[in-house]
């Protein structure tokens, strides 16, 4: 067996289980909540409006209200708030590290001094403008990310893909995305099975160099499998009449609830735009 503390094995298994849990488990999309009951096309369009609004708003209070609305929608859609916060805030350190934290300091954002940090004799000045700029940036990122994540976890993935068509995304692109989604799972299964097979055959301990070799061979094998599969899937498509222009069934149905939701979001969008403009004046 590859050692339990084997870095490569743990990384691969960790990545696979994360993908399975986050991408392929439609657990929240199957719950009976507010957002789950909406037509995916209208939901996607309204969430795009929310994200545009989050990008445009310059007033941090209005932005925080929008974030609060997002959290309320999550609760109304029977999403565990702890899970949702964990899923969305995971992105923040990444953005903060490269953009928000440098923006705090006078080197990047000159202005009124708010605090001074003495770091081994170097004086780093945090400016008021820098601090509020960074805060606005982080709030904007978390609000946009939260809406995007909320949309993806309350909608079945294939419905979300189909909904892309209302944004005039070409059908071939939607279809390729769908196939990627489908076959990533198949390859995940192949990787898992390959690892089980390796574990059952190579004994208890493997030198890390040999481990690396096994991984390299498996990457090559997987590449070959994907190449073969690509050819076979294309043949299977041809066999059923595909001629380069995919045709897809339009089977979404809207109800009064969807139109009511759309109306609410448009009013809110206009209201927030008005408030934003007023705050600037």
């Amino acid at each position: 067996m590859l050692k339990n503390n084997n870095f490569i094995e743990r990384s691969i298994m960790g990545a696979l289980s994360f993908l399975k849990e986050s991408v392929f488990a439609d657990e929240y999309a199957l719950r009976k909540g507010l957002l789950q009951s909406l037509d995916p096309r209208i939901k996607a369009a309204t969430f795009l409006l929310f994200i545009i609004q989050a990008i445009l708003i310059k007033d941090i209070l209005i932005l925080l209200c929008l974030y609060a609305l997002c959290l309320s929608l999550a609760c109304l859609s029977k999403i565990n708030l702890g899970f949702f916060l964990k899923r969305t805030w995971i992105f923040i350190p990444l953005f903060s590290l490269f953009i928000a934290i440098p923006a705090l300091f006078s080197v990047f954002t000159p202005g009124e001094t708010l605090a001074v940090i003495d770091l081994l004799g170097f004086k780093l000045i945090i400016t008021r403008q820098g601090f509020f700029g960074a805060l606005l940036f982080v709030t904007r990122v978390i609000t946009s990310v939260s809406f995007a994540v909320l949309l993806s976890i309350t909608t079945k993935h294939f419905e979300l893909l189909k909904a892309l068509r209302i944004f005039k995304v070409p059908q071939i692109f939607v279809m390729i995305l769908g196939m990627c989604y489908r076959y990533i799972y198949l390859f995940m299964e192949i990787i898992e099975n390959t690892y089980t097979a390796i574990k059952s055959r190579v004994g208890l301990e493997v030198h890390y160099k040999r481990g690396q070799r096994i991984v390299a061979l498996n990457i090559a094998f997987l590449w070959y499998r994907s190449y073969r599969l690509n050819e076979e899937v294309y043949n299977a498509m041809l066999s059923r009449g595909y001629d380069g222009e995919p045709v897809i069934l339009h089977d979404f149905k809207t109800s009064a609830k969807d139109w009511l939701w759309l109306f609410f979001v448009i009013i809110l969008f206009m209201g927030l735009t008005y408030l934003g403009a007023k705050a600037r004046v």
Partner: protein
Amino acid sequence: MANTIFELKDVHFSYLGKYPALRGIDIKIEKGQKIAVIGANGSGKSTLLHMLDGLIFPERGSITAFGSALNEDIFNDKVFSKDFRKKVGLVFQNPDVQLFCPTVKDDIIFGPLQLGIEEQEIEKRLERLLAILNIKDLVNRPPHQLSIGEKRKVAIASTLIIEPEVLILDEPTAGLDPLTTRHIIDLLIEENISGRTIITSTHDLHIVEEISDTVYVFSHNKQIVKSGEPDSILKDAALLQANNLVHIHSHRHKDKIHIHSHIHLDHHAEG
């Protein structure tokens, strides 16, 4: 001649120009026939089926389907191509290859949608097939969540919904439990009774008698070594053994050890 669907004359094919897959194949298939193609792994069965479905073409020799010679050029004609795809349906050996859409429903209706069949008609055919194959519960599920038997049923549905004149199946019962196997065989027999030509490749000898009236035996040399009625083929133990379709089996009964050739057909012969 009007009843002839496929005619292959001295067909040769190789992969990458150096790995032979078919050598000198002569086959004639008439409308309404039940054909079984048997042979060991790698004997060229799948290659033949892909050729009958117009996915690959002979390097030497000729293949005609419904009176027209099949080649790459003729499939560039969209009218011919669409007409051919409506008439001939192939169920692939690996259902993961055939089920490439995000849901079972999308997969089943993929074919008729591409072939321009009316949406109402598609819905009607879909309902009928879901009931026949007993897969109504699977309709909104992603194919990757299905068992192998369910995947095979969906793959068959995705071909049957086109209502082809010729149904080609590549090892449709491989790896299935006995009940699902039975279900699929019954379905094939019913489809043949309703007028469809059925061409099946398999090495499950116990199903050959039911799903065929003519059997072609492929050898390791990628050639047809014998063809005929299932009864005469299945009785030819030497032929089956020479082509890896039966094996010498040794087992113990109380204190005696028996050694004989093992064929799954034996278990069903007396029933």
